[in-house]
């Protein structure tokens, strides 16, 4: 074990996968010479420009060529600098990559990873701060990963690279500087397994990405209130570890879902619907969601802070369940 930050852990995982499989390459804007969040610099230093490929400002070509390269036998790891730019690559991602395995009758594999940076918190405003995981989860054929810790990021990026499907890997920009113990050497986590980040018996807080950290902070506050909160980190949204959610509810009987994405049609609604359908008898209280409001992300630091859910809001939602 070594202490690594979130970005270093991703780079560590990528380097190991690139050593293991020569068909893995990294591609995107400034991934080699001037990575926006620094993640792939170590990969470039290790492997050079053939395997860490800078591109022009051409998200459509980044994503579209990755689809063709994957279909033809390579394993691209494409970086889309901000998740907001999913709008630019949506045809290549949702109509091409996601559908090829199905519409070609299972004859073609499209093993690619889209690494992309989500989230508010640095004053990047409406077009560089969104959490758009629900755009991805609404398209069958895509997998959606959203880790919250350096160790999970290392283990899941390796799993994403090895997966034979198109995988979107969401990295919250505020997580890059967070540190944690990370297993040394090869470390691969299964895709589709949630993780209990804090055990508790009174309420289940379901979350992913940076909101797991906020939920853990809320759990600390709630402990002082005499409430033992369980924090369940989904880690992957597709495939979803439904069993982990229902098992936790079987212990706590209360559910609060926390995500940074806006509320309406957010992935929290899907979790709530599944629980209402398959776990209704487990519930002793209504399901609560703590989310951003249905607005674009504001620039003003004051407004941005009000936009993003925080520990106080999560605590209040839990206490409202009585």
């Amino acid at each position, binding site marked *: 074990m070594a202490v690594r930050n979130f970005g270093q852990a991703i780079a560590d995982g990528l380097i190991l996968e690139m050593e293991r499989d020569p*068909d893995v*390459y990294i591609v995107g804007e400034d991934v080699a010479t001037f990575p926006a969040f620094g993640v792939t610099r170590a990969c470039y230093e290790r492997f050079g420009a*053939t395997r860490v*490929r800078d*591109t*022009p400002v*051409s998200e*459509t*070509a980044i*994503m*579209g*060529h*990755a*689809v*063709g*390269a*994957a*279909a*033809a*036998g*390579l394993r*691209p790891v494409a970086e889309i600098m901000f998740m907001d730019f999913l709008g630019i690559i949506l*045809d*290549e991602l949702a*109509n*091409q990559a996601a559908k*090829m*395995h*199905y*519409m*070609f*009758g*299972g*004859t*073609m*594999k499209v*093993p690619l990873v889209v690494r992309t940076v989500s989230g508010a918190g640095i004053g990047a405003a409406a077009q560089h701060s969104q959490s758009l995981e629900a755009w991805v989860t609404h398209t*069958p*054929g895509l*997998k959606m990963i959203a880790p919250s810790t350096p160790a999970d990021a290392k283990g899941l990026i390796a799993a994403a690279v090895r997966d*034979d*499907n198109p995988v979107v890997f969401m990295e919250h920009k505020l997580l890059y500087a967070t540190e944690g113990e990370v297993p040394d050497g090869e470390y691969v986590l299964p895709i589709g397994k949630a993780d209990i980040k804090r055990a508790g018996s009174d309420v289940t807080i379901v979350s992913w990405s940076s909101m797991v950290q906020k939920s853990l902070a809320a759990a600390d506050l709630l402990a002082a209130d005499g409430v033992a909160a369980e924090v369940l980190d989904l880690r992957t949204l597709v495939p979803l570890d439904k069993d982990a959610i229902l098992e936790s509810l079987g212990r706590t009987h209360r559910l609060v879902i926390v995500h940074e994405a806006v509320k309406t049609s957010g992935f929290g609604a899907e979790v709530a619907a599944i629980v209402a359908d398959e776990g209704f008898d487990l519930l002793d209280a209504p399901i609560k969601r703590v989310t951003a409001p249905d607005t674009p992300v504001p620039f003003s630091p004051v407004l941005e802070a009000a936009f993003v859910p925080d520990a106080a809001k999560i605590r209040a939602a839990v206490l409202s369940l009585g």
Partner: protein
Amino acid sequence: MAVERDQLLDMYRCMVKIREFENRAHDLFLAGGLPGFLHLYSGQEAVAAGVMATLRPDDLIASTHRGHGHVIAKGGDVRLMLAEILGRATGYCKGKGGSMHIAAIELGILGANGVVGASIPIGVGAALACQYKDGDRVSVTFFGDGASNRGTFHEALNLASIWDLPAVFICENNLYGVGFCQRDHMRPCDVAERAAGYGFPGIVVDGNDAEAVYEATATAVARARAGGGPTMVECKTWRHHGHFVGDQALYRDPAEHAEWLARDPLLLCAKVLASRGWADEGALLAIQDEIRAEIEEAVAFALASPQPALSDLLTDVYSD
């Protein structure tokens, strides 16, 4: 790269096969037995036949919504193709793709595509795979005049150029983007001129002349194999039908249509074969009879094939 007798006869045979296939698909559609959209390749056969005659089996192609001709010319099995466009379990894609989504990776066919222009970056990615794997394979991307106005076209051509990829871009310019005439939908009117904007050669050929298509493409493919980077070959051609079966193409000038029909690529090729003494009328009719029998057998196979099982609805969403 002059064309020899056997090569031109093979191209002719390929064109007849495409035409007969499309004629039967058309009949099946009108008879009500064929679901969905059908974009016929008839009239453009010289492009598929001429291009594919320059390729090796391990070369890759990315196709379009009007892709039946590409698949046949790259070696596609017409039985599995007909089964696919009839939605049967025995089709290339188990009936899940249909006319616009036939792929056969074992033949280097990365798929037809229902989104105009989407094949272009996919073909460029395949070209990267060819270069990356240190072989001398090439990737050929088909698209039309309409697609050359998509952003995918411009971004993908630039990427292919800066990476010196073994990519050949085949523009099948049939002069209409659905119902919008090319002289109104883009400037300049030669799509190949746009290649210069990305720093590689573009050449215009008569797309109804299989020999001309072959020669231009062979040069482009040789250049790509040798590491010389991409080339565009624009093939001026004409679709005999509307954009899809059911479109009467009333937006086209009947006189222009008649002129192009008189330059049917099959007729032009037959004339060349005859004038060089490479095949007489009897030999050409024998080819046609043989192909018709093959297509009829394929139709029978497809019609006798089972529908997909309902359980197939839920399979193949993800690769295990």
